[in-house]
């Protein structure tokens, strides 16, 4: 077991290195000057721009820059943002809580909704409940999440005026009233993410349950006189959850990507909004750091999914 985990981790490290190299290469080989914003400024002469270029190390060939980036990263130094001149890591830490709050809460709700709906759907296959659930999960993953967001804004914020349109990041939660305000402003961004994630997870849960319900051990359990509840919960559910749990782990990076859209729609100043503004400002160090963080998340959760699958399913051999 330990060996299996160790090998998985050892594969993940070179993958991360290659991905960081690819992202760096894409950024470096792309045309466009990260200092273009200074070129338009008449107060900064060509010589000063050259100086800034040397200062940031931009005059060196990009493979050398990559090695330098990597060595400073190994010391925990993510570089400096071109536009705000502050350390990248500080900006990321500053933006992280908003994203984690919304994304974490949304995913938690989605999982709590999807598992029971999926179970009920599978147990009562082709019933009215199942048909409705199936229909809604199809709707859920056929709507682009920005459109769900626009619909929610139109309905809940413009017409009903229940929730604010724009997320206020200056709000400090220090009393019951401000807590209520925080809950209300988080409601819509969370709702949009929940709709999208629940749809996919419900489908997986349902099909995983159905795969197990037709197996022989279920018939055996029924034959020895166990009640329906015990058969479903203790036997079928336990087995069906194995692939679903790994999928839940695999889905975490995608919900961060979903946050890019909701954060731009509701003006939550989290990591997703930071990525878009940095891309538009050609702020290469921030873009590099964020894309790399998203890759690290993907790889870590792939790893967790792999390991959990091994732990939960004794049939998986650690070959």
């Amino acid at each position, binding site marked *: 077991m330990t060996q299996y985990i160790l090998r998985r981790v050892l594969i993940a490290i070179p*993958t991360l290195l*290659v*991905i960081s190299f*690819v*992202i760096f290469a*894409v*950024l470096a080989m*792309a*045309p*466009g000057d990260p200092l273009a914003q200074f070129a338009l400024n008449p107060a900064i002469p060509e010589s000063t721009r050259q100086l800034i270029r040397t200062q940031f190390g931009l005059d060196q060939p990009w493979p050398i820059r990559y090695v330098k980036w990597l060595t400073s990263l190994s010391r925990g130094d993510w570089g400096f943002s071109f536009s705000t001149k502050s350390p990248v890591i500080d900006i990321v830490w500053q933006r992280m809580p908003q994203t984690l709050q919304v994304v974490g809460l949304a995913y938690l709700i989605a999982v709590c909704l999807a598992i029971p709906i999926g179970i009920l759907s599978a147990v009562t296959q082709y019933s009215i409940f199942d048909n409705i659930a199936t229909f809604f999960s*199809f*709707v859920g*993953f*056929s*709507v*682009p*999440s*920005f*459109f769900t967001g*626009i*619909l929610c*804004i*139109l309905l809940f914020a*413009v017409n009903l005026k229940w929730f604010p349109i724009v997320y206020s990041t200056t709000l400090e939660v220090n009393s019951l009233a401000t807590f209520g305000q925080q809950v209300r402003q988080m409601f819509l961004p969370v709702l949009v993410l929940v709709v999208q994630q629940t749809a996919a997870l419900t*489908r*997986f849960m349902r*099909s995983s349950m*159905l*795969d197990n319900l037709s197996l022989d051990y279920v018939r055996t359990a029924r034959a020895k006189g166990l009640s329906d509840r015990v058969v479903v919960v203790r036997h079928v559910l336990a087995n069906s959850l194995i692939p679903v749990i790994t999928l839940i782990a695999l889905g975490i*990076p995608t919900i*961060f*990507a979903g946050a*890019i*859209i909701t954060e*731009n729609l509701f003006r939550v100043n989290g990591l997703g909004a930071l*990525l*878009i503004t940095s*891309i*538009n400002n050609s702020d290469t160090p921030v*873009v590099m750091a*964020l*894309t790399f963080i*998203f*890759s690290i*998340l*993907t*790889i870590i959760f*792939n790893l967790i999914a792999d390991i959990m699958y091994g732990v939960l399913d004794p049939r998986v051999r650690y070959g």
Partner: protein
Amino acid sequence: MSEADQALDGRTTVTTTSALSQQLTTGIAIKPRTLLGDAWRRFRRHRLAMFGVATLLFFGLSVSLGPLIYQGYLLRQLEQEGMPISNPHPDLRALVDHLDFLSLMTPPNSIHLLGTDDLGRDLLARCMYGGRVSLAVGFVAMIIAISLGTFVGAVAGFFGGSIDQILMRITDLFLSLPVIPFILLTVYLFRDPVILAMGSPETGIFMIVVTVIGCLAWMQTARIVRASFLSLKEKEFVEAATALGVGTWAIMFRHILPNAMGPIIVAATLEVGSAIITESTLSFLGVGFPPDTPTWGRLVTDGSQYLQAAPWLALFPGALIFLAVLSINFLGDGLRDALDPRSRL
């Protein structure tokens, strides 16, 4: 008629046909049942999939032939209104860009069937044009993703060994790339040179969006194809083909591939839908097509600024994206059931 009656009706027709086919069996010859015929029979029974096919056909006709009918109508209406188009031979593009200053942001009416935007441009004409772009993006991105995936999967599964190892490592690598950030990044960074190389912004953005989406969506197909090739290459018909002296590539693509087609077709269908969503998301984030090219995603984004004054501007194109993708997903689901009756997802 209640649903139960309808169901009963359906059952009686089934019994009559089967009775008929029994009569025929006792006769001389009956039409042979083919694999595709069976699939079609299963597919027809999938009501949602048939709904999908109908909607998609309607969309296809609307964006290809629809403008021919609507063009004449809109021109006459504009003339009556007093805002005729100066262009003597107007096409869809001219209608898309035509500014009708007499009706700015009007709700759907008899002149502009779906209303107009803030510059008085006709929303239906723009939706038709946008549909062409969006559906084309979905289709071409799917072709790229499926061809790449099929090729990689086929080579990895057929040759095995170190080729398989290397290709699967690359597949894993692509699966670990954060897709949306990476697409945003590449489209943003490379769009100017590609536009320069292609001559027009629209073709340039089309090429880059389609390539990037396609190149980041082939991995699942590669895995599916590899898995089927691994088992199919051990079958007798492959041995027979080898014994007959058929070349390696012909065995792979003429003999094995048709047997692995089912899951590929399903993956291809679903890929069209997800490419349409990705493209509209890019437009929403401001990294998609140029502002004067109305794609569905672009129309929703532009319309979302006028949610209070003119909600139809965002709602109609959004509903079109939703309906198109929903139909594609239903179609994919029906195809999955029809081509592989054992699978359930």
